[in-house]
């Protein structure tokens, strides 16, 4: 039994959405990681402000990709979703804990004014940015190694604590930090912060090297822990892997040459990350869990898959332009977090001293009587309706 075209198409959409989450949501997590590593309150002030300013308007939009991943998975591949969420209860619960803490830290840090409260919410935000990608990585590692049973009973600790899974967890953290640092280089440059541009270029280079090393390590681990995926990664998916490596090296080269091109640098770094996700998806094909749960056995009835296809189409039609609008405004510097009410308050206070406009005239006697009559009629009708025998069944 081979997978239907609809199942393959929805699986492809799922992989694209995952790549999008890695690029957008991942960058936000990475921002948190750099926030964590920015040092003391004094020293880290400038980079922290830049991180904050570039993430704040967009993080909620970026976060929705994750919701889409969950919904797509449970709609299109319900048995796989149920199995993953049963067996990998622990890392998934920890990753959602990270999401809660991060969101809360984000929501409240802007209103916290005293320094120690700021530091507390900032620390929560930063630490959570580390937890979430790590445990999401272990989940993906567990799936890729085929350690998730198709019908699990209770937690399966061994599934996500294998060396491959842990390696994948670290790879996720490093990749988030990498993609984020590259974006921040451009953010700093756009705002004309010379020193911050260099600051993040250095970190992007370091994170790029570490990510590359971890990716290599994970691949090596996969050769023993998941021969099927390894075989396809070095077989049919090899072009994608090669593109990823080439793009990664190209980014390092651009950073070395200080050629901070707003489009090329961003796109190349994005390609380096996205191709890894696509490569993983291709390597798993045609399995949801290699090699125990094939796509065909784990997918939903056709109509549900077609519906997801329609949803994806709607998303492209509605969400894509909206996203473009958001990023356009953000890149143009039209979205600012800091604002002041001073202008309005002055004007408002002034207005209060002005003589107030005459109030609209109250209802005339005629209107009053008419209203009362209408209300009485409605009331009588209602009471008659309730007790009239014609409604009896």
């Amino acid at each position: 039994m081979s997978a239907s075209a609809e199942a393959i198409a929805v699986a492809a959409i799922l992989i694209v959405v995952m790549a999008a989450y890695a690029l957008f949501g991942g960058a936000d997590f990475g921002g948190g990681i750099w926030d964590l590593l920015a040092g003391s309150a004094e020293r880290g002030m400038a980079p922290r402000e830049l991180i904050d300013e570039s993430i704040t308007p967009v993080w909620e939009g970026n976060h929705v990709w994750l919701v889409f991943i969950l919904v797509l998975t449970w709609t299109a591949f319900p048995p796989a979703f149920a199995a993953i969420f049963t067996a990998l209860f622990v890392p998934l619960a920890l990753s959602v804990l990270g999401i809660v803490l991060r969101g809360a830290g984000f929501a409240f840090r802007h209103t916290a004014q005293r320094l120690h409260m700021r530091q507390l919410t900032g620390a929560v935000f930063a630490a959570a940015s580390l937890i979430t990608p790590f445990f999401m990585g272990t989940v993906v590692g567990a799936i890729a190694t085929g350690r998730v049973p198709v019908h699990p009973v209770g937690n399966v600790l061994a599934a996500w604590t294998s060396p491959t899974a842990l390696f994948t967890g670290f790879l996720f953290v490093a990749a988030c930090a990498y993609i984020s640092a590259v974006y921040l280089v451009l953010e700093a440059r756009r705002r004309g912060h010379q020193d911050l541009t260099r600051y993040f270029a250095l970190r992007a280079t370091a994170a790029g090297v570490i990510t590359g090393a971890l990716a290599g390590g994970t691949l090596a681990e996969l050769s023993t822990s998941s021969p099927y995926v390894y075989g396809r990664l070095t077989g049919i998916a090899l072009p994608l892997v090669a593109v990823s490596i080439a793009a990664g090296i190209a980014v390092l080269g651009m950073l070395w040459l200080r050629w901070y091109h707003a489009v090329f640098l961003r796109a190349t770094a994005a390609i380096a990350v996205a191709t890894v996700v696509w490569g993983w998806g291709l390597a798993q094909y045609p399995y949801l869990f290699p090699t125990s749960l094939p796509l065909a056995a784990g997918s939903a009835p056709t109509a549900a898959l077609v519906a997801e296809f329609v949803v994806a189409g709607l998303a492209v039609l509605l969400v894509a332009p909206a996203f473009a609008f958001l990023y356009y405004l953000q890149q143009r510097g039209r979205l600012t977090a800091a604002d002041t009410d001073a202008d309005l308050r002055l004007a408002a206070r002034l207005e209060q001293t002005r003589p107030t406009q005459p109030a609209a005239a109250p209802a005339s006697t005629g209107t009053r009587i008419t209203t009362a009559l209408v209300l009485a009629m409605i009331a009588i009708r209602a009471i008659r309706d309730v007790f009239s025998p014609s409604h009896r069944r």
Partner: protein
Amino acid sequence: MDALTHVLAVNAVNPVPARSQMGSSLGFHIILACFGIAFAAITMIAEWIGIRRGDAVALLLARRWSKVMAVLVAVGAVSGTVLSYEMGLLWPGLMGRFGAAIGFPFSMEGIFFFLEAIFVGVYLYGWQRLPPWVHWWSGMPIVVAGILGATSVVAANSWMNSPAGYTLSHGKLTSVDPVSVFFNPSTPYETTHMVLAAYMVTGFVIAGVYAVGLLRGRRDRYHRLGFAIPFAVAGILAPLQVLMGDIIARFIANNQPIKFAAMEYVTTTSRNVPEWIGGIFINGKVYFGAAIPSFNSILVGFSPHTKVIGWDSVPAAYRPPLVTLIHLSFDLMVGIGFFLFALAAWQGWWWWFHRRLLLTPWFLVPSAVSGVAAIAAMEAGWIVTEVGRQPWIVYRVLLVSQAVTSSGGVPITLGVILVLYAILTVVSIGVPMVMSRRWRQETPAEEDAEQVPYGPSPATASATGLPPPPTVPRASPGEPKSL
């Protein structure tokens, strides 16, 4: 009913911790969700008044509300994600079997959530540098997506109450009709009820805050307008909600008779069923309750002779637990509904004939608690619908005990969720309070000194469409009679 026999053969897992966790997560999220659905609309009304009439007070309110909205929407986005996770973490038995069916409304919700999140970003951070009307319109998608998103996600819940649009063979889902899933029999009732509730909760909560301010003697136009806008929105919808509730109760009596029986203490199927108001159900008898003879039959079928189905019609294993909780929650919801209706009618009457805001404590004290009351009513309503559906997770198709996870960690996650949400609740209430205190203390001069790092140049102040702030000494707020 071969699903029933199939169900009985399955070994049950204790679902109480998972149910408690789902209940507390939903109960927490639903409050924030209300603000996600309705806050933007109320803010935009203030902004519209502000731009249209050059009213700085209204604009100030709108801008400050949007700051509070930023906090609440962020927490709501997060607690909503927790719910998505919990669908899998707690109920893999539901998702594995029916994920394909229930997934479609959730997918639609995903799109609307996306639009909402994007435009919240534009609206919240666009105050300074977008032209006034462009900014106003950037809020419109939040309003539309909020309503449609709520409709979608409540449609998923409706499906659990009246499953439709799927075919099972041998306990396996073989085909799905996503449109029938979305528009299942309960959808029109539940979604309308919830969207109205969201606007009422948001409106009465905001109005309640300003009612407290008015009670404390801050009777300037800022507080009066801050009270009037949200109160008008919620108050206009209050009678509609009472009407809707009546229609829904009749629908439930037909569609989920056992739930209705628990709501109204209908023990045995009969005619001339009395309507119990209050009362505790112990061992087949109702204590401390007042019964209106035959009134329940009248409400269900407009006649005392209407037959109402009692819970004796199903085996004890398929009756909801905690009937007292269900009944009292239902009474509480209905009672508060009428209370809010009365409050709105009172102000409405006064406004119609006197064009004035009621400022007597007799009105303001109840108004101050109207927000809390609206939240309580909504929570009670969710208790009725969720506990009333027990022991089913999908009504008459799948038991909760079949859907619950076999993972052992739920008591721990329940504990973590309770602690975390307690903190989040305190902070979600505390942050706006701190904000408002800061707003009251601020004088323009101080704030100008404060905004150094990326504050816009004073020239952008004209983006509000107002003349540049004149430098006149502050006058004490007057006491004009009208708004």
